[in-house]
């Protein structure tokens, strides 16, 4: 098992509740997140509403992804065979350290001191940038938002728009300082132009590029990358060497399947009918793009997730981030509260599983289970179902330890289970509670303070006192003294 410091995708300074509290105090960030997620949700709803076949597309996307996962070894081997035949090199990395070693070796083989990068979550997951810097290689992020994060020495908070928590004034300040442009304006077009000028020289000069991928295509041995700015295309076509670091779960059976995902992913991710650029290629093509192409397949905790029949669907994820944009918890806390590269509802189920349920255990609780995430998911991951399943796993893990077994929560829950299992015991408990609550009930019939662990409930809301007569008692009384009324004709 990896020590926490080898798993950089779990920043793990705090558990979710503490981290969230900190984020809630930053009203500027909250405003930025609220604004951006509202804009993107409106756009998404509009373009999704245009397609009468949307639910059929979701279903087909879900089936294709689930099928690929059920036969993951088959499709990975098919991808490897076809990619190799097309002139690509396939490497396998079982964990983050393994992947960092392979990536660094490939980069050093070409004596590269700088690499250009397309936004890739897997690279964040393995902490690639810090590793390269420690070995004298300078990674340069080319996605506008990643560039903002890199130059601002910040952390990504969203996996489609990593700098979503920054507004244009904040971006301008970072660019003015880091690009030495004191006169830079704050219009988005000024900022985009600054990024164009800053990076163009680098595209033309740097000979090694690093990317992730949206999909690996088994039947062509190909790779598919969706993007907007053209920074991806620059990295995919101009350097001599391209290295793509991709999670093993990203494989789809056929090129044909892209006809589903190229409809659902752009609409879900950025609320566009189609993002400006999508690239697909297989291996190397003389005179077109890199002379050398490597794919590094990353496991890093993914393969054990396949064994859990209920949670396996987590790996269907296509990283569109629609669930983040739809989530009322994410709206309030932003991405940093999740203390992981993978934020939001999908992060709340993915992060703890990638860490074998040994860390990030508060994350399955970072949800109100409202189901908005499931409704917008273009591959129908039932996130609320998996959240509840994982909460169960957290409890089971806890019960294995002595402190967990003797903890107040466990004892309380065991007592509740005992009480709720029998109507006599429940009725008895209700009567006892009705008497016990008396000193706490104020004149208006509400309780506004409770002791100990129960104080969590009354911290932000009052509790209605338990009435003298329970519903069960009332029912019994009604039905023993008079017959039920005739049903009115409707």
């Amino acid at each position, binding site marked *: 098992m990896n020590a926490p410091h080898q798993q950089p995708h779990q920043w793990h300074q705090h558990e979710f509740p503490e981290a969230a509290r900190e984020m809630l105090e930053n009203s500027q960030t909250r405003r930025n997140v609220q604004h*951006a997620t509202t*804009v993107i949700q409106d756009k998404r709803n509009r373009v999704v509403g245009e397609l*009468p*076949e949307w639910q*059929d*597309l979701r*279903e*087909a996307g879900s089936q294709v992804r689930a099928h690929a996962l059920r*036969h*993951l*070894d*088959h499709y*990975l081997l098919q991808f490897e065979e076809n990619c190799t035949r097309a002139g690509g090199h396939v490497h*396998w*990395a*079982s964990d983050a350290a*393994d992947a960092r*070693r392979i990536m660094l070796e490939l980069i050093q083989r070409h004596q590269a001191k700088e690499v250009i990068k397309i936004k890739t979550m897997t690279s964040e997951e393995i902490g690639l940038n810090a590793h390269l810097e420690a070995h004298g290689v300078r990674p340069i992020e*080319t996605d*506008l*938002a990643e560039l903002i994060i890199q130059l601002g020495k910040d952390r990504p908070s969203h996996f489609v*728009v990593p*700098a979503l928590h920054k507004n*244009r004034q904040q*971006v301008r300040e970072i660019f003015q300082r880091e690009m030495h442009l004191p006169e830079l304006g704050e219009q988005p077009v000024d900022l*985009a132009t600054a*990024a*164009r000028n800053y990076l163009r020289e680098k*595209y*033309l000069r740097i000979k090694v590029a690093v990317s992730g991928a949206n999909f690996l295509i088994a*039947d*062509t041995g190909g790779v598919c990358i969706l993007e*907007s*700015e*053209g920074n991806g*295309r620059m990295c995919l*076509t101009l350097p001599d060497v391209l290295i793509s670091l991709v999670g093993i779960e990203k494989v789809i*059976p056929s*090129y*044909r399947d*892209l*006809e589903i995902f190229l*409809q659902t992913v752009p609409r879900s991710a*950025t609320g*566009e*009918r*189609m993002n*400006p*650029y999508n690239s*697909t*290629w297989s291996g190397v093509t003389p*005179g*077109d*793009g890199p002379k050398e192409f490597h794919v590094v397949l990353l*496991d890093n905790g993914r*393969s*054990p*997730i*396949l*064994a859990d029949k209920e949670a396996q669907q987590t790996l269907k994820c296509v990283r569109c981030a629609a669930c983040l944009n739809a989530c009322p918890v994410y709206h309030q806390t932003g991405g940093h509260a999740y203390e992981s590269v993978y934020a939001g509802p999908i992060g709340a189920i993915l992060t703890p599983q990638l860490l074998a349920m040994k860390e990030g255990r508060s994350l399955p609780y970072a949800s109100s289970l409202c189901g908005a995430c499931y409704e917008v998911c273009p591959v129908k991951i039932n996130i609320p179902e998996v959240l509840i399943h994982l909460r169960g796993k957290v409890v089971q893990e806890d019960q294995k330890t002595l402190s967990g077994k003797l903890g107040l929560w466990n004892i309380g829950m065991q007592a509740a289970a005992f009480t709720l299992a029998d109507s006599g015991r429940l009725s008895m408990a209700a009567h006892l509670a009705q008497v016990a609550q008396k000193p706490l009930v104020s004149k208006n019939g509400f309780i506004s303070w409770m002791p100990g662990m129960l104080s969590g409930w009354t911290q932000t809301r009052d509790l209605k006192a338990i009435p003298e007569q329970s519903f069960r008692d009332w029912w019994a009384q009604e039905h023993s003294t008079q017959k039920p009324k005739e049903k009115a004709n409707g």
Partner: protein
Amino acid sequence: MADAVDSRAKILASIRMSLGERRQDTVIAAEYAGIMRDYRRPEERTREALLEHFEDRLREYDAGVYRASTTSIAQVVAEILASRGKAGLAMPAGIPAEWLPDGFVFTDASGLDEHQLDRVEGVLTACTVAIAETGSIALQNAPGQGARQMSLVPDYHLCVVFASQVVASVPDAFDRLMPTASLPTTFISGPSATADIEMTRIKGVHGPRFFDVVIVAD
């Protein structure tokens, strides 16, 4: 530290342990063939309505759209270049001579490196297929379309699309792309853009900032 061969075997073993019993290739193929594809809908629009739809979508991306007949391509290209103030364009091998008007300089860009491409005024290409619903064109490494960097590095891209290349939907486009699925392929939907600042689509980042399409009735 594990060596490369070990990691491959380790990952495959771990996947197989998680998944349990393995299926035969024929069983997997049958399961895949059974996936519901009810999203395919018959196209009810007329040919002309489809082209207008394509045109609307392109304009929404802020692309310029022009119409031509098979005999007037050069004339329309000349008008566009004049309005854009261009003296000429680079182009991949395989562009028909009859597309090229007199009075402008067209250079074969197939031998140019990225530094040279960075200095041209723009590029003229054909395409493989276009999608009305999403306002997209797909370019492949083929005659008239060239290497991927050709339609990327210059700041201006002029693309000639024949009406017969315009299909209604994304699945219709894949019907046409499947035979050449392994070629380097780029789907282009408007000029380069970003939504990274406050989720607003801003035109003009690293790819061509200016993009025009000529739709040719054929």
